[in-house]
């Protein structure tokens, strides 16, 4: 009971706690080490637990934590919200690393790897593309209202790029912010819009 309360107050104290997605995007956009450490502490015990479930071996599970989190770091620039939640992105990537670790341990031929079996970075599924075009018209009208709810910093960036049609470099100059900052605000802003519109379905 007391723990419950503590947890809640500490959560309230961290009003600014960033979502998994925001952390992952920050890692991908600006090599944000603090964000990576947070992701690490959020996911390492989960990865370990999945490793124990699939390999029943503590050493392999520790290896899995390292390999999976290394892959998170390396591939973070490829993540965007079209790929679903950060959680399912990290889950599938952990599954793949675990599959490869087990194959290696069983000395199976290495002509093929988990990333061949579950292609991650290929084109999206055909049916999803169709759905996307079907919902496009609704999005346009809805997006405007969500746009107004964005934090000012993100709104300014989205405005420069999508309304004034400026290049990233031009927009960064106009707003007098570093290019990296512009890109991460843009991604966050667009991510939020997409989330509102329900692209995460």
């Amino acid at each position, binding site marked *: 009971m007391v723990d419950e309360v503590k947890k809640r107050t500490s959560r309230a104290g961290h009003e600014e706690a960033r979502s998994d997605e925001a952390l992952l995007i920050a890692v991908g956009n600006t090599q944000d080490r603090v964000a*990576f450490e947070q992701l690490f502490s959020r996911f390492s015990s989960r990865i370990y637990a999945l490793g124990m479930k699939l390999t029943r071996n503590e050493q392999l599970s520790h290896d899995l934590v390292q390999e999976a989190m290394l892959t998170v*770091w390396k591939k973070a620039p*490829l993540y965007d919200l079209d790929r679903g939640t950060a*959680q*399912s992105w990290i889950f*599938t990537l952990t599954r793949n690393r*675990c*599959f490869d670790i087990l194959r290696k341990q069983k000395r199976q031929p290495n002509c*093929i790897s988990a990333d061949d079996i579950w292609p991650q970075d290929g084109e999206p599924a055909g049916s999803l593309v169709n759905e996307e075009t079907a919902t496009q018209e609704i999005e346009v009208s809805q997006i405007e209202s969500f746009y107004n709810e964005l934090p000012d910093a993100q709104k300014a960036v989205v405005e420069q790029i999508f309304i004034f049609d400026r290049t990233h470099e031009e927009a960064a100059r106009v707003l007098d912010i570093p290019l990296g900052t512009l890109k991460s605000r843009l991604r966050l802003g667009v991510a939020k819009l997409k989330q509102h519109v329900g692209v995460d379905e």
Partner: protein
Amino acid sequence: MTDQSNFHPSTKLLEEYALGTLSTGMSVAISAHVELCDDCKQHVSVAEQHAATAWAGSASTKSNGAPDYSDVIASIVSQVQDGSVAPQISVPEELHTPEHSVVLPRVLAKVAAEGLVWKKLAGGINQARVELDNETQCEFIYMKPGSKTPVHTHMGSEVTLVLDGSFSDEMGEYGPADFVLRDKKDHHQPCSDEGCLCFAVLDSPLTFTKGLARLFNPLIRYKFRRATSAGI
């Protein structure tokens, strides 16, 4: 090519595939089917999301003994990130049969990329083994037009994924993208009028029994069929 197939992996098999618990051979066969079947692709993606959600609650008890990972983190963040999209196999691999050239699903293209050695068997059957793991026997099979396999029994269960042409047995006729599961109880004698290229996986019966039971569950077949016709 999509949405044509009438025979699919069971829901249970697709879920196990999504979790990564199947043998490599079996995973490859399902991966190839899934690439050809939007319906199953959808099932897998939903299964992955469910697994990821269930995963979120899986490790909360283990917070005390969390080891100190600061060295690991330091060594990871010193590495260079992948800036661009991972390279894909750009050219689709084709297999040439006397009738057609067949574009293979990506995963099978990768499997075949090392080169296939074809062996002639009785009854107009050609077989090219590929070694994927220590638990299954995997092979490409090409049946010449008018061929008939000798009646055969296997130790375990057999998955056959049709890649081109068609074959039939006592239980039905199978065309491209069909995923056909048989166990050793099924005495079947496949034959092909027009010729047929397949990928086959012989697995241990143990891995299979649950999946098999589900495949023949009429409710699930109904569900698949309904989903297929409700699609495009």
